[in-house]
């Protein structure tokens, strides 16, 4: 794996500090972080909590592919992507993406690029638990 890219898929709470510390670099003037948190509602329903599962080995490879494109396209210095697994409560962190660049515009663009792609291609699945039952998000029409 590229030495400027840190990818972790974790069963415990995610740490912004850990992602920040990974990407901070003396040549960089800007760090953009995106933190995806669990919302208490979705499509008009109250959400109680979530569960994430992943095809971990493939998920890491797919995230790595996305980060390599971002590195090439937006000249990133370092990238950290940490994703949570298992039971996650409302307001807890589901994903953290941190990107450092020399110029800030690239940091915003790379960070948004990575979260957009991650949501489309990385084999991680979210089950939403509502008042009455649960369902896999995006799974059915």
């Amino acid at each position, binding site marked *: 794996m590229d030495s400027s890219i840190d990818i972790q898929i974790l069963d415990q709470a995610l740490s912004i500090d850990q992602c920040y510390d990974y990407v901070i670099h003396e040549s960089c003037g800007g760090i953009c972080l995106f933190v*995806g948190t669990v919302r208490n509602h979705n499509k008009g329903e109250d959400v109680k909590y979530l569960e*994430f*599962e*992943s*095809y971990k*080995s*493939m*998920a890491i*490879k797919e995230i790595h592919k996305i980060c390599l494109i971002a590195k090439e396209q937006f000249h990133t210095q370092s990238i950290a992507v940490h*994703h949570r697994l298992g039971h996650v409560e409302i307001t807890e962190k*589901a*994903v953290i993406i941190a990107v450092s660049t020399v110029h800030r515009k690239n940091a915003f663009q790379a960070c948004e690029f990575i*979260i957009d792609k*991650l*949501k*489309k*291609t*990385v*084999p*991680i*699945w*979210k*089950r939403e638990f509502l008042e009455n039952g649960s369902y*896999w*998000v*995006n*799974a*059915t*029409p």
Partner: protein
Amino acid sequence: MKVLCFGIARDIAGASEIKITTEEVQSVSQLRRYLEEQFPKFQSINQYMVAINEAYAEDTTEIKSSDHIAIIPPVSGG
């Protein structure tokens, strides 16, 4: 041939891994046909993908029994 099942695919198959013994499944499209016969609910979910050796495969991709195969229902990470 072993096939990993995640998310709603695991719920439909009733297991996180299914074994396929027939010789008929030698490509991704044959795997799809097999799954949809064995577990008709696969026809009612959103388009799923198949991964071979931890990478997305095309319908025409051939499958060897030694491959790592996985059903990838629509993802929802992040």
